[in-house]
């Protein structure tokens, strides 16, 4: 259940482009045609799906506070999280290089159509951002990390597909000359982000169920405490007598 919740949350509510503006540079540069946008979006999904779980493993077993406990109990005091930036970017650069080699071998057509953008994905803020948000939101398991990687990628893909489609259509509209190209894209993205904010109410149904459970648990605890208080009172009065 939490998998499905994380999936939809990462695509619509915490959308990489509209909520946190990650990957904007390539988003603005590649969105002139739908065909190239689809290619780049697919590449981003693939790289995120590979790097986020890998970085989760790195964080869990090497970088977190107390993560090195598997080496020996005396290593559990080390907190290497300050190395996160360098380690994450190193895995991302390596994985992108590997992906490039694999794509070139198995699908030269795709490799040629992506051109320079495949190596540029390594420095796309969306990829590093995916790993950093995975770390700061403390994703609990490897499966959830894979889920988060794929769904963040799909969110980014959705965003770049939408803006490319709109940009193709407004080529025939009378946009004021100073706004042509970059300016109108910024304003359009802002309007789309406002639209995506409406998804914020999507998951409150489940939250209400959780809140009810929490309330019942709290009431239960209160009653237990009252029972304990009264029994201790009876004991103390009995002792005094």
């Amino acid at each position: 259940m939490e998998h499905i919740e994380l999936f939809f949350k990462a695509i619509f509510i915490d959308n990489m482009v509209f909520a946190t503006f990650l990957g904007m540079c390539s988003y603005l540069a590649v969105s002139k045609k739908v065909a190239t946008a689809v290619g780049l979006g697919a590449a981003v999904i693939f790289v995120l799906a590979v790097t986020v779980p890998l970085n989760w493993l790195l964080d869990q077993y090497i970088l977190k506070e107390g993560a090195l406990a598997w080496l020996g109990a005396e290593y559990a005091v080390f907190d290497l999280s300050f190395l996160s930036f360098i380690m994450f970017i190193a895995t991302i650069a390596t994985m992108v290089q590997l992906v490039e080699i694999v794509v070139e071998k198995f699908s030269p057509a795709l490799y040629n159509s992506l051109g320079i953008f495949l190596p540029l994905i390594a420095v796309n803020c969306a990829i590093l951002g995916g790993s950093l948000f995975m770390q700061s939101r403390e994703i609990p398991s490897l499966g959830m990390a894979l889920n988060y990687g794929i769904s963040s990628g799909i969110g980014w893909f959705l965003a770049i597909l939408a803006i490319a489609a709109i940009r193709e259509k407004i080529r025939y509209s009378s946009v004021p000359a100073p706004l042509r190209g970059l300016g109108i894209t910024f304003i359009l993205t802002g309007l789309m982000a406002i639209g995506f904010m409406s998804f914020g109410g999507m998951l409150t149904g489940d939250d209400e169920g959780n809140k009810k459970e929490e309330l019942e648990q709290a009431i239960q605890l209160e009653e237990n405490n009252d029972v304990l208080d009264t029994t201790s009172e009876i004991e103390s009065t009995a002792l005094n007598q």
Partner: protein
Amino acid sequence: MAEVAEQEKIVKAPKEPLFSKKNRKLITDPLTDNNPITIQVLGICSALAITAELKASIVMTISVLFVLGVGNVVISLMRNIIPSKIRIIVQLVVVATLVIIVDLVLKAFAYELSKTLSVFVGLIITNCIIMGRFEAFALANSPWKSFLDGIGNAAGYGAILIIVGFFRELLGSGTLLGFKMLGDPIDKTGLYALGYENNGFMLLSPMALIVVGLIIWVQRSRNLALIEEE
């Protein structure tokens, strides 16, 4: 004797003064005509997400100034010994180290602010301006010029961040750097007595995009050479 005279004739070109016109241009160009955000379309990600407060914008500007200035100098000093095949990795390592320093300094001296900036300090690593200037300038120019170029581009980036942060904080919460500028919204003094309300929408992220779009509109209306072709 004649050979000595000939050797003396091979005069070295006069050293360019530190702040010559060309060097000054390296700083002033990115502030207007070659602005990294609005013209070169680099460094947008972090520019939009953290500008809800003017203080965050100023701190981010100082961080990028440090990373880009020092990074440009380091890469420029190493430019003749970096093999071409691994230059991206070398650049990433230099940037990542500088950003780790910035992050630790922020956590030590401005903890609240580091929480607001959260992952975006780390995202300075992938800030396209830094890698872009390393590739375009530092790998081919001397350290002093690279330093000026770095400072100039960071200043151009900072100018946009500060303008956006200024409007978003002023219109969104009526304060600047935490000081109430338009009166007190709860006690209804100042402008609020006339019925003015804070535009809460300005504090949300989409408005940053629209404000930058408007800045581009103003910039290109003033300099018609920047307008894109059909």
